[in-house]
């Protein structure tokens, strides 16, 4: 199964994500979830980004929070709404919202 998980909050979700198994896992950071893509704690990126997955962050939600795509971690791809639609229909078959 190809699963895309929308992460919409900035809090520890690693335990929840660990319970999700998929042949292909995509994590799309939206709303306050975009902080996972830019904030470091004690010099380390978010624990969430250590998971084996393809990471995406919504550019509009970055901009809304005054965050620049230049600060996004290198393993996270910046996408817009059109890209998210394509991810939904072309790359993943099941969707979840956290």
């Amino acid at each position, binding site marked *: 199964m190809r699963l895309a998980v929308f992460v919409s909050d900035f809090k520890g979700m690693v335990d929840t994500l660990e319970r999700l198994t998929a042949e292909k896992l995509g994590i799309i950071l939206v709303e306050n979830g975009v902080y996972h893509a830019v904030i470091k704690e004690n010099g380390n990126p978010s624990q969430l980004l250590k998971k084996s997955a393809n990471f995406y962050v919504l550019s509009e939600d970055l901009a809304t929070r005054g965050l620049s795509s230049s600060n996004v971690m290198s393993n996270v791809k910046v996408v817009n709404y059109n890209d998210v*639609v394509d991810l939904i229909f072309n790359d993943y078959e099941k969707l979840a919202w956290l």
Partner: protein
Amino acid sequence: MGTLTIGIFSSLIGSMSFDFTMKLAEAAVNKGHKVNLWFSGNATSAAKNNQKHLKDYSTGEKPLKALLEKGVEICTCEACTSARGIQKTDAIEKIQWNAMHWYLAKIHHSDRVLHIGGE
């Protein structure tokens, strides 16, 4: 082209999830996909007509009507809407009123489903 059904439980004010839903629906329908929206819980407040436009929010009655004109099917949970004191006579035209079975039927016939829970 595919069909995307989104169930949304959050309201416009106080949550960004409703805003996200509207923008995703618009992007999908503009790409030629069929989109269905199910409003439940506090999201049903969006069915009310004569909403004041707030400049800090990109969504509201006007964009909702634009989505309807583009063929997006929108249905509000009748029980949730009525419970909030909104009657059909106070609602945006073309928004359907129905029960959970509408949502389940749309899910059954959709290629993709995104269920966004409430606050």
